């Protein structure tokens, strides 16, 4: 049984009411979950003895600009046991631009989520310390959104006096 079937089977068994979708593209497995289930699914993926996705490699988001669900939050997790990688994708709409934090599952999620908040403005609920990661705290825009110009907005970042 390959990883795709194992995960599909285990999730179906443990979360009967949750819609999950597994896609394989270029030998990479992607799991699509609904927003409200993200924390418990992640917790399960980490703690299940057969899966053990203990290493969270990366959390980021994609801005689709014009789609209905504007953002997709992507989690890349790695299993030290089976040396497999899994991408977990969650759609987030702009009208309710928030998602539950997984910092309680993996400690490393803390900074990744702060970075995603800084760059896309997606709020992570129950995050222990949600501040901007790179940009100054006073900065009011989210640079990686598609409506933000590459050269920035003139005057939004002050320079010292000459």
């Amino acid at each position, binding site marked *: 049984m390959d990883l795709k079937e194992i995960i599909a089977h285990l999730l179906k068994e443990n979360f009967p009411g949750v819609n999950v979708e597994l896609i394989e593209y270029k030998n990479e497995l992607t799991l699509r979950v609904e927003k409200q289930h993200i924390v418990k699914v992640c917790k399960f993926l980490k703690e299940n003895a057969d899966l053990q996705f203990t290493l969270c490699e990366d959390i980021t988001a994609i801005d689709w600009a014009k789609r209905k669900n504007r953002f997709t939050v992507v989690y890349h997790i790695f299993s030290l046991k089976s040396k497999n990688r899994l991408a977990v994708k969650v759609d987030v709409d702009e009208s309710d631009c928030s998602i539950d934090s997984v910092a309680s599952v993996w400690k490393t999620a803390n900074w990744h989520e702060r970075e995603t908040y800084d760059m896309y403005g997606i709020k992570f609920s129950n995050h222990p310390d949600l501040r901007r990661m790179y940009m100054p705290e006073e900065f009011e825009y989210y640079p990686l959104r598609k409506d933000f110009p590459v050269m920035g907005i003139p005057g939004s970042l002050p320079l*010292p006096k000459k």
Partner: protein
Amino acid sequence: MGLEAKLTDDGFFTTKLDAIIEWSRKYSVWPMPMGISCCAIEMMAAGDPKYDIARFGSEVMRFTPRQCDLMIVAGTVTYKMSHVVRKIYDQMPDPKWVIAMGACTSSGGMYRSYNVVQGIDQFLPVDIYLAGCPPRPDNLLNALIQIQDKIGKTRAKDFQDIKLPELTVLQSN
């Protein structure tokens, strides 16, 4: 042998004050290594045995601005960092010089983006713009020599307009 040979006769020689100050200042430039990114590594390489910045009397890299007279801004300056760079520049005693090392500091270089200052001359007076991304250590040494030339041309009267901050005299009891 040079200086000593002259001194054996009378034990003194005459020169202009400007000349002796510029001469001593020129060969003991103390750089403030404002190492920010990639250029900082090449600046470190200029100090290693192969390039050896000590040959030009500038091996004394001081990390406190109060002991330096040459600031080498090495690396991309972002808007967040610009305030720090300016603050450190303000803490350096006069007279002071600035080398903008590399393309990023000179003009923003390859970083046409929202967070990079497009040239540090927007908030700092720059003496030498150094080309390269990053410049080779030899090129940094060349810039140092040019700074030395520039120091050699300064005269005491150039500094007469500069206002010194007022000294507060501490009264005893």
